[in-house]
């Protein structure tokens, strides 16, 4: 019996975050179970003109090297991906990424709504979406898409967030399965990992 009611049917985890999410992401990645089988696709708001440093900073403590995918790169099991600076990151049917330089959404490029929305479209109910601390409503619509297509939704406990606008916007817009602290999200990943052993 597991408290998160998980199974081994999931195909991917997608994470969105903005202001105040960095520490949480680092903690999650540093305590990821070794050999965690699913791809983790992250869209975090970042400076548009700074191409370098972010992925390196995230990789420092991460169990798995974080990479910024190239346009049309295949999504691989167990890899951790980060949306590159100044590009929107989409997932396409056929299990690969595509990038775009379309207009900003919610004043953001990369926009979390695009990454979450396209993941929801491709992975349907085999997707877990996690939205962390942030100062605008980007990601709320994406979480709604995930829920509407039968996926699993988690937001960071607003009281723990540096800025709680992002998780609260998602909670206002759609059903959230779990509201968790970062430490509990770490536990969630361990529980999820067990389903595949």
């Amino acid at each position, binding site marked *: 019996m597991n408290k998160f009611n998980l199974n081994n049917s999931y195909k991917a985890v997608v994470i969105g975050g903005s202001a105040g999410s960095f520490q949480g992401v680092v903690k999650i990645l540093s305590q990821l179970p070794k050999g965690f089988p699913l791809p983790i696709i992250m869209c975090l708001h970042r400076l548009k*003109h700074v*191409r370098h440093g972010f992925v390196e900073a995230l990789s420092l403590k991460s169990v798995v090297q974080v990479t*910024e*995918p*190239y*346009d*049309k*790169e295949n999504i691989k099991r167990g890899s951790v991906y980060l949306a*590159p600076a*100044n*590009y929107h990151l*989409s*997932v*396409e*049917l056929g299990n690969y990424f*595509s*990038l*775009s*330089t*379309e*207009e900003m959404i919610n004043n953001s490029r990369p926009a979390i709504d*695009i990454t979450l929305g*396209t993941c929801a*479209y491709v992975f349907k109910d085999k997707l877990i979406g996690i939205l962390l601390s942030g100062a605008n409503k980007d990601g709320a619509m994406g979480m709604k898409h995930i829920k509407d297509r039968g996926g699993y939704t988690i937001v960071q406990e607003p009281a723990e967030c540096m800025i709680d606008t992002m998780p609260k916007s998602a909670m206002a817009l759609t059903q959230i399965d779990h509201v968790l602290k970062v430490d509990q999200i770490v536990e969630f990943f361990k529980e999820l990992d067990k389903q595949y052993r």
Partner: protein
Amino acid sequence: MQDIDIADLKRISELIYQKYGYDFRNYAMSSFKRRVLRIMDLKRLTVDALIRKLNDSPEFIHEFLDELTVNVTEMFRDPSFWRIMREEIIPAILLNHKQFKIWHAGCSSGEEVLSMAILLKEMGIHQDVQIYATDLDTTILERAKSGTYSIKNMELNEKNYIRFQGAGSLKDYYREENGQAVFNKDLLNNVTFRKHDLVMGEVFNKFDLVLCRNVMIYFNQALQNEVLKKFHESLFKYGYLAIGSKESLIWCDYANRFIVVNNEEKIYKKIKD
């Protein structure tokens, strides 16, 4: 916002192909879908109404193309790319040719063309270079020709120019008129703007340098492969091709006819015919 399924997207791309000769059938699906939904939203049309309008009103296609194609760009986007152009690529071309030709493929509203013109001006070789700038969208080509941009975009352009470490200030190249930045006309006097469709169009000239940054990301891999063949044919041997920093050619058939000159900025050199 409304939703649209793949069958309807295919109906739309098939209709545009059959009726107007533009081929979007091999565009990357997620962005194509967002663009079509955006048009439906802007014009307040349902899928059926959009298809009817495309069918019944031939003049609508221009408006449609202008909104469908992504025309978001910056001057000196990725300043480090432009520094490499100035410090390595253009000097390498100049070693062999005093005069040369550049093609901006998918030039959109022309920010990169102007960036190149300014770079060449500052190198003192503007008059020795012939630039071709092409796009399939005639509305956006007119905007590019005018060399006029909203003042509110200039802050970002100015920041990029400073990171590019240009010789002066970007303000040296334009004047303000009614909230618009109007660039000096002589910057574009060596530029030929023309309508050209990368997907359907023929190879029309030979170049020493082709820039096509963040254009092929809207294509699927099969189409990227075809377009790279056209670029290969459009380049002189030892000519250069620049694509976007997060694009890759490694999965294309013709990849082995190029070598990587700068992996960070994704600049390639044609080494085999």
